[in-house]
C-alpha cells in the first residue's frame, strides 16, 4: 500500500492465452447460436448449414484451450484455487456489502469461482447434448428432443452468465487490464482481493 506504483503479477502468459482463445470461441458459439435459434435472425442470416458447422466446430474446440492450459503450472494452481470455497466465500456470497472491502477475498472472489464452475459444467453439457443433436443417428428421437431442450436452456443460461461476466469486466478497467497484461496495481489488489494481495506480499 505504501509502495506507490507497485504492481503484482496476476495472470501468466499461458493463462491469458487460455482466456483469450476460450473467449473468442465462446463468442463464436454464442453469436452463431443466436443466428441458429432466433427465427428473424435465422432467416436474415440464412446459410444454415454453414452457420451450423461454424457453431458445431467452435463448440468442439471450446474445451481445447482449457485442456491445453493444463501444461502450465500457474493455470493448474489457479484451477485448484477456483475449486476451493472457504467459509469467507460463503459469507461473501450471502452478504449484501460484499464489495465494500471488508472481506478477506483471495485471488478469486466467490462469484468468480461460481462463474468458472458453472461455465465449465455448462460447456460439457452443451458439447454432449450438441453431439446428440448433430449426429442424429446416435439416440432415439425423444432423447434428441430432450437434448435440444437441455441445450437450449443451458445455452440461454451460459449466454446470460457470459453477459454478466462482460458486465463486471467492463465496469472494472483494471480487472480487464489484469487479464490483458497479466499485471495489476497493488492498490487494486488490496481493494478487490485483499487476502491474495496480502499473501503475495509475504512471498514476493
Amino acid at each position, binding site marked *: 500500500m505504501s509502495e506507490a506504483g507497485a504492481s503484482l503479477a496476476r495472470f501468466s502468459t499461458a493463462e491469458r492465452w487460455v482466456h483469450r482463445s476460450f473467449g473468442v470461441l465462446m463468442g463464436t458459439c454464442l453469436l452463431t447460436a443466436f443466428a441458429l*435459434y*432466433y*427465427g*428473424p435472425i*435465422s*432467416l*436474415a442470416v*440464412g*446459410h*444454415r*448449414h454453414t452457420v451450423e458447422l461454424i457453431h458445431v466446430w467452435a463448440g468442439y474446440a471450446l474445451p481445447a484451450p482449457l485442456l491445453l492450459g493444463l501444461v502450465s503450472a500457474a493455470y493448474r494452481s489457479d484451477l485448484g484455487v*477456483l*475449486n*476451493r*470455497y472457504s467459509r469467507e466465500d460463503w459469507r461473501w456470497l450471502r452478504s449484501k456489502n460484499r464489495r465494500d472491502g471488508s472481506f478477506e477475498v483471495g485471488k478469486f472472489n466467490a462469484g468468480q*469461482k*461460481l462463474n*468458472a*464452475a*458453472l461455465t*465449465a*459444467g*455448462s460447456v*460439457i*453439457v452443451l458439447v*454432449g*447434448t450438441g453431439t*446428440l*443433436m*448433430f449426429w*442424429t*443417428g446416435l*439416440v*432415439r*428421437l*425423444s*432423447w*434428441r*428432443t*430432450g*437434448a*435440444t*431442450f*437441455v441445450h*437450449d*436452456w*443451458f445455452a*440461454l443460461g451460459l449466454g446470460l452468465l457470459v453477459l454478466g461476466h462482460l458486465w463486471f469486466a467492463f465496469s472494472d478497467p483494471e480487472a480487464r487490464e489484469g487479464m490483458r497484461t497479466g499485471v495489476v496495481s497493488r492498490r487494486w489488489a488490496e481493494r478487490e482481493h485483499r487476502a491474495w494481495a496480502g499473501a503475495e506480499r509475504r512471498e514476493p
Partner: protein
Amino acid sequence: MGRRIVLGLLGLGAAGVVGGASFSRKLSDALAPAELHDPTGLLSTLPVGPVFRYYSVTGGVPHRSEQSYQLRVDGLVAQAATYRLADLEALPQTSFVSDFHCVSGWSVPGDEWSGVALSELLDRAEPASSARAVRIRSFDGTYTESLSLEDARLPHVVVALRMLGDPVSHDHGGPVRMYVDGHYGYKSTKWLSGIELTDNEIPGYWERRGYPLKGVVGE
C-alpha cells in the same frame, strides 16, 4: 466444491436428455395460456416449446406473391405443366392434422395442414413407366429434396397451401411448400418451385450432408 457444481450440472443435463421431452411438453402446456396473453412476446422466444424454428439454407429467399408464384411439374412425364397459385387452389384440397418433427429434436404437435395431394398432381402429369422418384426444388435456388414415387403417392404428402389455419406465410415456406407427413421436417421442402420425375432417387440438400434418404420419423 467447484467440481461438485460441475458434476451437478452434468447430472442435470443427463436427466434433461432422458426426461426433457415429456417435461418440456408439460412445461409448454402449463405456459400456453400465459403465452397467449403475453404482450411482450418474450415467452414465445424462450425454449419452452413447441414453436416452429425457421430455417433457410441460403442468404435471402425471394418473395413470391399470388400472381408471381409458379409450380413446375416436369421430368419423366407425358403432361408437363405449370401451376399458378389460383390453379392449385382450384384443385381438390386435402386437410389433416399432424405432428411436425425436426430431425434435430424439436417438434410441434397437432398442426393443421391443407393443400393438394402430390398424388393428384402426379396423376395429372402421367408419369412415364421409367419414373421411380420425384425431385423437389425450392425457389430459394439451392434446396432440393427427393421422395420415392411410392412415398410421393401417400395420401398425406401434400403441396401445402395452408398451415396452422392460415395461408402458408413466407417464413414458413410460402406461398406454397411441401408437407410430407410421417417424415422429418427436412423432407418438407419450403418455398416449393418444382417437382421433377426422375428414374432414380437423387439425394437432396441435407442428405448430401449426411441425413438419411428416407427420413421417416422415429427411424
